[in-house]
């Protein structure tokens, strides 16, 4: 197994003194499905955004594909970002544009300023977008405006936009937090499929511990900007959950040990 991403002692401090991440280190292997869990405000989002430098980390090293990408700027930064697809809790689509136009936005990182601004895409790119949408079950919707789609459909457009980048890593920031259970399952299945069939590494923020346990190869628990757990789901104990969620642990009403045992029995 080769390592795709390695975070070494990454910290993020804001100007007003708040520490969003302190000394975070972990690594992710190629093709792995890793879930980051933790209470809201623990720094999950910041962690994800530090990887593609939507937020600039203050300290540490980010080794992606054997290159330290920390502090990349301009063209190098944009090139690096094309290798990382990202999907969001609020889907972040341009609502007034059609589904296929939104998907093709994933190619902008490969375009010159002029071609990108004018939205000049090649036939191959358009066909690829169509193929992706077909696979994600949105064939009928390609000319629909995104504001007419359901949440689950919007998230699938988001996935297609990320996939057309031909990424090595998918960063998923709470992709199912605004979805109903059935759409959530569809999205999670697609993401699992991306990791299994396309061998794309998936790093996903989740606040549902049970979903993380069901899908992830590995779970990283974050609390107050630090990593407090890093291991396979079956290793997760109730004490770990307490360490991650603090006093809120009881409210989650999950006995991870039971769930872990059940899952192990299934296998």
């Amino acid at each position: 197994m080769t390592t795709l991403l390695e975070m070494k002692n990454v910290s993020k401090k804001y100007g007003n003194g708040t520490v969003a991440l302190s000394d975070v280190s972990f690594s992710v292997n190629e093709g792995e499905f890793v879930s980051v869990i933790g209470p809201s405000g623990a720094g999950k989002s910041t962690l994800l955004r530090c990887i593609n430098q939507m937020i600039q980390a203050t300290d540490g090293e980010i080794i992606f594909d054997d290159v330290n990408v920390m502090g990349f700027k301009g063209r190098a930064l944009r090139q690096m970002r094309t290798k990382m697809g990202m999907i969001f809790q609020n889907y972040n689509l341009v609502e007034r544009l059609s589904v296929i136009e939104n998907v093709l936005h994933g190619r902008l990182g490969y375009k010159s300023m002029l071609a990108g601004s004018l939205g000049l895409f090649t036939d191959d790119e358009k066909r690829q977008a169509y193929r992706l949408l077909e696979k994600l079950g949105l064939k009928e919707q390609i000319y629909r405006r995104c504001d007419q789609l359901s949440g689950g459909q919007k998230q699938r457009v988001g996935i297609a936009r990320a996939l057309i980048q031909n990424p090595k890593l998918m960063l998923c920031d709470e992709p199912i937090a605004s979805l109903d259970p059935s759409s959530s399952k569809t999205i999670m299945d697609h993401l699992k499929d991306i990791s299994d069939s396309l061998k794309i590494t998936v790093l996903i923020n989740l606040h549902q511990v049970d979903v993380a346990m069901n899908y992830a190869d590995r779970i990283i628990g974050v609390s107050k900007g630090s990593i407090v757990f890093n291991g396979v789901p079956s290793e997760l104990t109730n004490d770990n959950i307490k360490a991650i969620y603090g006093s809120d642990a009881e409210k989650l009403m999950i006995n991870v040990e039971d769930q872990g045992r059940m899952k192990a029995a299934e296998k």
Partner: protein
Amino acid sequence: MKASPKLTNDVFAATDRLPPIKLKKLTKSNIVIRTTMIVLAVLTVYGFVTFNNQKLNFWQNLFATFANFRTIFFQPHFNHFTFSQAFEGVLITLALGLLTTIVGAVVAFFLSLLAAENLTNKTISNSVKTLVAIIRAVPTVLWVLIFAIAAGLGSVAAVIGMSFHSISYLTKAYSESFEELDEGVIEALKATGAGWWQIVFQSIVPNSLTSLISWTFMRFEVNFGVAVAMGAAAGAGGIGYEMFMSGVFYFDIREMGTITYFILAIAIILEIISIQIKARIRA
């Protein structure tokens, strides 16, 4: 639930088997936006071609204009009048704006009661709204000049003439605030046997008072600018008139600079107050 097809690596493979895919499906909205843009662009270019019919040297004049701007903003001085006279001019302009706003607000209040659909009926509401739209179609300066024939040039014609647009603007704004009021509140009061005026003053006015005040102040902000313009163009007096005299009569652009700073200062103060009122009402 139907299982979705598995993703395979062929999503990235050559996809020649598919026909070319059109990106844009022309929706009505897209067509209208494009057509509007093209029409505006064509009219603008056509306009530019026809504007310069006097064959004046465009660039030379443009540079002269920039030089004038520089003089105005960096070398203001007093010449034909003193600070206190300029200050008095500003006060007169503010007073004109204020009187216009008050007259406009009072008339607009009664008109908006008729224009609000939930207080009257559709016919009355629509006819008041049409009347107000026609009033707005006549530029303010024409209202002032038309009234000046009957009342003579001066503050009376200025205030009455300027009030027309305030009436029109505030009637629209007030009636929309009234229409936001919950139908149930009016019904509840009707059920108690309250009369029309009682409903107006016990529920409509208290409920929309804050937005009425906000709209009125915003109009006052606009009216200050209108009063400056009417001073310059329609003999309403105040700082606008002094600006007109310095600029067109004495050609003293440095003095115009002083006046510009006075106008700018008041406009910015009014805007800051207006933003604060809006913020407080939203909170």
